[in-house]
């Protein structure tokens, strides 16, 4: 059983899991029991146990998104006991471990709730809206080849570090799920900040911010009311400062840009 702690006691848990066959059929919470869960397991390994049990019992396993299971791909996206990625700060669902729960606990597991993220099935949602926002301008327009030597663009270390911090967003959608307005401002601001800070991103900064915001609105994300639950629940610590940068970029673009209506 346990690798580090030979005395770790297995747990029995009650799970309330959102089940929904597809996008158009109404869903509901279904109760399951799981037994002998090791505290050393990750949350997703606990769900693996549930799914193997269901499959052996001839029932449909619970669909959920996951892949790297080391907190970097951004696939996993569970709303656990009313929190994006569960109770532990700065942690994706795949890195949450069962030792954070106790024997006898009831755990409620839901998909991200946002109009812009329709449910595919059970706990899996469609986050393609994020891709379309990036496609609207989250890049520097350079083709392969014909670029200057990497060291011809000197970038002050603190600027490079701040750009890096913003660039670490994993696009999981926890910020949207945590926001009462289902706003995507933290996600959009992370990319806008990264590229607005760097010299490579400056030539397109005005059209970029306008186009990305326009796409964000079109996708049906809500407005930002500066509560900050997005940054509080972000598993990789994207700072609220980025939203301030986004607002500044947007206002500045609107006031001076003649590229767009």
């Amino acid at each position, binding site marked *: *059983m*346990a*690798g*580090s*702690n030979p005395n770790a006691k297995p747990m029995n848990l009650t799970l309330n899991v959102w089940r929904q*066959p*597809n996008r158009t059929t109404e869903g509901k919470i279904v109760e399951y029991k799981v037994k002998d869960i*090791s505290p*050393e*397991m*990750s949350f*997703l390994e606990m769900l*693996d*146990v549930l*799914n193997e049990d*269901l*499959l*052996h019992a*001839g029932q449909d*396993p619970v*669909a959920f*998104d*996951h*892949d*790297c*299971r*080391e*907190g*970097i*791909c951004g*696939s996993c996206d569970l709303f656990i006991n009313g929190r994006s990625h569960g109770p532990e700060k700065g942690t994706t669902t795949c*890195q949450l*471990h069962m*030792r954070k729960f106790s024997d006898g606990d009831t755990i409620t597991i839901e998909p991200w709730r946002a109009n812009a993220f329709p449910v595919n099935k059970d706990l899996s949602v469609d986050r*393609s809206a994020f*891709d379309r926002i*990036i*496609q609207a*301008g*989250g*890049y*520097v327009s*350079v*083709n*392969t080849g014909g*670029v*200057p*030597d*990497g060291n011809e663009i000197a970038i*002050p*270390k603190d600027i*490079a*570090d701040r*750009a*890096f911090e913003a*660039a*670490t967003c994993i696009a999981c959608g926890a910020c949207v799920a945590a926001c009462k307005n289902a706003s995507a401002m933290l996600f959009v601001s992370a990319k806008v900040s990264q590229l607005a800070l*760097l010299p*490579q*991103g400056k030539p397109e900064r005005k059209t970029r911010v306008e186009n990305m915001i326009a796409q964000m609105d079109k996708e049906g994300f809500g407005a930002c009311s500066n509560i900050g639950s997005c940054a509080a629940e972000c598993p990789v610590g994207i700072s609220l400062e980025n939203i301030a940068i986004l607002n500044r970029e947007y206002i500045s673009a609107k006031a001076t840009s003649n590229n767009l209506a």
Partner: protein
Amino acid sequence: MLLDSKIPEGPLAEKWEKHKFNVKLVNPANKRKYDVIVVGTGLAGSSAAASLAELGYNVKAFTYHDSPRRAHSIAAQGGINAAKNYQNDGDSVFRLFYDTVKGGDYRAREANVYRLAQVSVNIIDQCVAQGVPFAREYGGLLANRSFGGAQVSRTFYARGQTGQQLLLGAYSALSRQVAYGKVKLYTRSEMLDLVTVDGQARGIVTRHLITGEIETHAAHAVVLATGGYGNVFYLSTNAKYCNTTAAWRAHKKGAYFANPCFTQIHPTCIPVSGDYQSKLTLMSESLRNDGRVWVPKTVETAERLRKGEIKATDIAEGDRDYFLERKYPAFGNLVPRDVASRNAKQMCDEGRGVGTTGLAVYLDFAEIIQRIGADGVSQKYGNLFAMYEKITDEDPYKLPMRIYPAVHYTMGGLWVDYNLQTTIPGLYATGECNFSDHGANRLGASALMQGLADGYFVIPYTIGDYLAATAPKPVDTQHPAFAEAKAGVQARTEQLLAIKGTRTPDQFHKALGHVMWEYCGMARNAEGLRFAKTEIQRLRKEFWSDVRVAGTGEELNQTLEKAGRVADFIELGELMIDDALARNESCGGHFREEYQTPEGEALRDDENFAYVAAWEYQGENQPEKLNKEELTFENVKLTQRSYK
């Protein structure tokens, strides 16, 4: 078929330049008439798709993820090599080439590796221009570090998440082409077969993972950038979805599979903690710069540790065996990955492993903590120590880390020529999906380099040459070959659903992984390999009569997806065994116990095995045919690696 690697004539340093001049070009107006399918959107796939679209080709890009940005390239930690010599420490294109060929234990093609080293410098420039936030010095210029035992500092990095930043750069270039309408993006679409017409690759069959719809797509050429097959072992550092299906389907349609037994086992991973374990997590190689590897001197002490009666810190200095320092005084804890892994396994086999499972050794930081303090250590390795604590609930500042080797990368893959074309005309393989550049062992920070080299700087030239030279006729999905391939995929899906057996795909996958790890893992021998072959054949029979898949094919069905992937892993596993049995030597990650030096190190046989083993599919239940591509070394001298 005779294997023609199509290596250009001329001196090593001039081959690629000359070849670029000699390739035929497609004029800009004609590029619009050609469609190219790219499967996979990791570093190799996204970079290829974006670059081809920029040139004017119509690209269709496929990923089984919900977004191209989720590909497993995102998880690469350490960095990317480039022969920039920014540090003035003696690096050069030739040195990077030389290190890579030697590190691969002389089982890679010289011309390919040299080209890789040449274009490595362009990759860094490209990524910087895209806005990739590499680490920088206070003067504003790019920072470098040494990595993987290299004697020069040539590794560019973005903290411990270089793969993420490089992939997001390639993803941004891809997204831009999607916005321009030059790339059509197909997400949640898994390739389940290749379509060939008159012997040429002309399309693919996919299953849409949300609707279950089986679709066909036609093109003038197909690029597979679908990654490696490390998950054949069930437990690996690969992401859960990583699989061999696209490459294996292409193999069964005629693409040779090269050196399948060359797998890399990384020495520093967090050990398995129980049967429920779903994947393994890497702890960066850089930790061996300061950590000391040890186990207890006696089995009795190890047993008390495993029972929890004592802690690591209770063991006196004299009762510890720093086995790497003892056996390799010159290199100590910094021996290459394959050597460090084999020695850790040996200690555990002797019964001196630690942790409750006994399958772990210690990586101890007590000495450096004493020397530079916990704060100093935190500045160097803080994020890794935090990740370790999150997973194990142990504080590595107080107790030594427990580590064990885990499968990390596969050097084998689809055989490709110098143009990255497989043995099927019009089918290309890039990145980890092909076999080309790493020989029998890959050096650290070289995987990201190869994926981007292939996608940004090789494929755009070589695919144009193929299209201009062959001018493939238009084909659409109405051609009978598409209906036939589609029917095959549908029949297989229905078969998997109809078995309704008693064991889940994961149970079969774990059983396969156990056999592969025990008999085709860190150490192999003929007897074990022959036993493993019969085990895998038995497993395959049982799978097709006893696997259980719930639900239907017309919905999101993750068990069905898994079942199809496991079925292909079982077949590939058998080929890996055949390859390991046929290679009667030890080299790099392939250690055959019968072939070792008196000191227990890998013993190559250059006279008989300096070749690429390219396996040719012969039909269901037929032994595959071994084709050999002889490797010639004109620019490096073959030597025995020694780390004593």
